[in-house]
């Protein structure tokens, strides 16, 4: 179970981590600093609101983002995910906690230093694009370079490169208002990439776009990620998007991280009823891979079945099982990891078919016991009482 091992390891060293977030809190309101450290900090949001008038947006959040990965933060509106990503670049000042970028504490940075970090190390893409309607596309893309003080010929050359990269060739001298939503977001992307940042921050970048264009843009991000190997923190409320893009997914609820894990872990082993409910509509066969179900051979089991790689999703394993009665052999390079049989896949499919809160809750109780170290939402209500 290699996936679990990597997940559980706390990142101690700084060099192999891009973002390191520890005990981050953001509370809005006049008495924000009086809450952390008191017994009130454990109280739920409504009680804190009632007693102090403050709103807890981000509550004691810790996570690491590794170089080159896409780290997706997913949650419904009001879960604090947009506040969280703004704390990473200090568009919103956190109430307490630390954010380190490459080992440097961003919270301690002076205004001057913070500007340097923003100009060179991280760039953000926004839900509503945040383009300047008064400027031409090329000047929008070059903005970050312009405020750095880069001379015009150089920044135009660089901006042109970025415009070509996101496929907006020919629109350099148009204005943002003349472009469609999808094209505008390409400009937003080009603008962020132009400063060649180490980390990209995406705040629900595709939520305002049509489904078809959204798919194009997701593919674009995957492509650029592969080509440029940037680290990315990606906020979304769309589970499909999270599963498609995320190397790891953090699920957020009421300001807290409920679960952090690979797409398979989130779908296959939800940390609690909330996550289970959230992921219940996902077809497991399209997310879970052979690696997830791999096991040792049963005694007297046939071991001459077809072979496959551990990254194959179950939907593609199914035809192989249909063609042979022997379980599929999962092979990574030259090593045999183990076997996946018909019963294993059937169980995964059966979980998909389950409907109704009781059954979900039953599964959850089972699974929760299996996961010792996951963050579990103790205060959260279970949906058992909903009555489907």
């Amino acid at each position, binding site marked *: 179970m290699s996936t679990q091992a990597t997940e559980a390891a706390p990142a101690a060293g700084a060099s192999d981590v891009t973002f390191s977030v520890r005990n981050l809190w953001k509370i809005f309101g006049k008495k924000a600093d009086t809450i952390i450290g008191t017994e009130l900090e454990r109280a739920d949001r409504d009680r804190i609101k009632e007693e102090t008038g403050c709103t807890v947006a981000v509550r004691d959040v810790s996570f690491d983002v590794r170089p080159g990965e896409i780290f997706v933060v997913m949650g419904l509106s009001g879960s604090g995910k947009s506040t969280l990503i*703004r704390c990473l*670049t200090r*568009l919103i000042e956190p109430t307490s906690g630390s954010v380190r970028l490459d080992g440097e504490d961003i919270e301690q940075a002076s205004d001057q230093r*913070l*500007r*340097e*970090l*923003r*100009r*060179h190390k*991280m*760039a*953000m893409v*926004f839900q*509503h*694009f*945040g*383009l*300047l*309607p*008064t*400027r031409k596309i090329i000047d929008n893309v070059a*903005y*970050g370079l*312009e*405020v*750095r003080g880069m001379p015009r010929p150089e920044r135009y050359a660089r901006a042109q490169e970025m415009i070509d990269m996101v496929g907006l060739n020919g629109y350099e001298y148009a204005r943002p208002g003349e472009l469609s939503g999808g094209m505008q977001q390409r400009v*937003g992307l080009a*603008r962020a990439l132009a*400063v060649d940042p180490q980390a990209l*921050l995406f705040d629900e970048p595709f939520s305002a776009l049509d489904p078809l264009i959204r798919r194009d843009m997701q593919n674009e991000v995957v492509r650029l990620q592969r080509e440029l190997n940037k680290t990315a923190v990606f906020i979304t409320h769309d589970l499909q998007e999270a599963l498609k893009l995320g190397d790891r997914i953090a699920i957020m609820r009421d300001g807290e991280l409920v679960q952090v894990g690979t797409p398979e872990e989130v779908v296959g082993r939800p940390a609690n009823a909330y996550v289970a409910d959230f992921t219940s509509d996902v077809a497991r066969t399209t997310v879970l891979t052979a690696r997830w179900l791999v096991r040792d051979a049963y005694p007297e089991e046939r071991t001459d079945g077809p072979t496959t790689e551990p990254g194959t999703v179950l939907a593609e394993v199914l035809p192989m099982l249909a063609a042979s009665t022997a379980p599929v052999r999962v092979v990574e390079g030259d090593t045999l990891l183990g076997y996946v049989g018909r019963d294993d896949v059937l169980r995964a499919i059966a979980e998909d078919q389950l409907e109704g809160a009781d059954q979900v809750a039953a599964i959850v109780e089972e699974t929760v016991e299996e996961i010792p170290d996951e963050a579990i939402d103790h205060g959260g209500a279970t949906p058992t009482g909903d009555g489907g």
Partner: protein
Amino acid sequence: MATVTEPTGSTAVGTATSGRTGGWLRSSAAQALLVFVVLVAGYWVTRLMGEPSWAGGFPTGPGDRFMAWLDQVYAWIVANRNDSPLFLYFFNYISVGLGSAVVLINQALDFLTWAGVTALGLFTAWRVAGWRVALLVLATFAVFALTGLWTESMTTLALIITSVFIALLFGLPLGILAGRSEMFYRGLRPVLDFMQIMPAFAYLLPFVLLFGIGNPAAAVVTAVYALPPVVRITALAIREVPQGAIEATTSLGSTPWQMLTKVQLPMAKRTILLGVNQTIMLAVSMVVIASVIGAGGLGDAIYQALAKVNVGQAFQAGLAIVMLAIAMDRVTGAVGHGTRTPNIPERYRMPLSAAGLAVIILVTAIGRLFGLGAWPRDLSIDIATPVNIAYEWVQSVIGAYTAALATWTLNWILSPLDLLLSGSPWWLVVIAATALGWIFAGVRVAIVSAVSFLVIGLLGVWDNAMDTLSQVLVASLVTIALGVVIGVLMSRNDVLAAILRPVLDAMQTLPPFVYLIPAVALFGIGRIPALVAALIFALPPVIRLVNDGIRGVATGSVEAAVSQGSTKWQLLTKVELPMARGSLLLAVNQGIILVLSMVVMGALVGAGALGNDVVVGLAQNQLGLGLAAGLAIVCLGLFLDRVTQGRRAPRA
């Protein structure tokens, strides 16, 4: 005394307990009526008692002392204007500087000759606003020339340019600061609010005190008067820059200065230009009024003509100002809207501007070569004489009727009201004002009302203030009644709306000063023409607000009411007017404030009262009287504004 306190007390109880109990007394209108009845009763009671000393007008002692003190201050200033360092090194420098600026711009316009000025105006108008507006500008210059008022027009133009420049010099930075700092904005807003309810006439005297009579004082007073819109709108424009753009550019590491120059100002530019347009329009109206404190130009021409009741001459100058105002509005408004600007590809813009400049220089050179200067006066068309003939004719035909109407209004409405206000015991009037403040707007406004009236008394201009107040009340009532009727009709009839809208637009761009001209033409001089001018001046915004308010009522509510079988009258009274309440209240407030500002200006056509104190104070060097009257006007404005603004928050 008993007669007074008892009913007033019961009014108070009625207000306090309003909400659940009480019958007709709960309505504000009934309570106000009650206050009026008490006032009338108080007037008759004291009258029948033989007007005892404790029941007269406001004691004049404190006012006289105050004016004497102000006169001393003025005398000191006059005596020390050339020794006191404050004047020597500050006000006098500003004064000389501004005076020279006006003269310099005037000379520059002279240097260009009439041909060069026209070329410059035409090219600018065409470049920013298209050829239609350019034609309008051409017509404007033609009017300047053909009325024989070219020189006066250029002086007015020079004054406007100077004062707008000063207003922007201070207004833009203030607006930017207010746009970026919430605290600064909060501090500034009440000041701007106050400046905007202050009638133009009340501004004049303090500046005379500091700068003496003449163009410098006129330029400063115009700049101050025109300041609020550019500050307010710049602040608003900067605050309205979308948060998304701010966040995005912050996240890319912009410094605050880069944020201002690269993001906020470019995105706020168009809105700011609209603020500049409003500031220019206020400057146009004030520059004309400032003729009272010695500003030359077109305003002075009207001022002189009105003094001689020469309607023809006043009409000529008025026409020139009207054209100037409309042309300025169209040109500067087009810059803000950007809709009519000719669509010229970017690479031609520079060469085009250069070509335009070349043409202007060429025209100027030719003009100078031929020794042109201002448009020669003997090449003008005499409009004054035919207008005067027409005026005589109109007078002979309807003069008797207008005179009768005027006399009737004067004898049966205005004079009795004036008598009631100034003949009642002063403290009863103060109590009535306080009660009205309480009824319409709550305790705080009641206090403001009481203080305003007491201050008016202490300033020593009680009688004249009551005279002004009676004029304002009568003119406001007529304005609001007419405005609501026309506004409702306009909201019902799209054809009428289509006809009225441009007329109202044009009327709102005109400087208030020119409204005195038709009023004098119809009603001669006195209080009635002042009321008529106030009516014409205040009517357009009232009509517009009523119309917009009714048209703004949600279609859903109207459809629901119609589907349940409302008649048109029921629809209006039960749905539309109640739902348009906010607009109606604003219309009342605006109407009254505009009426006040015009009524005091009516002193120039013999309306007397506070406005006259200002004029006399200026003309006869009685600065004490003038300043006291100016302050009293401010107090009246404050009272009328606060009472009609009503409660900020609806009753719980």
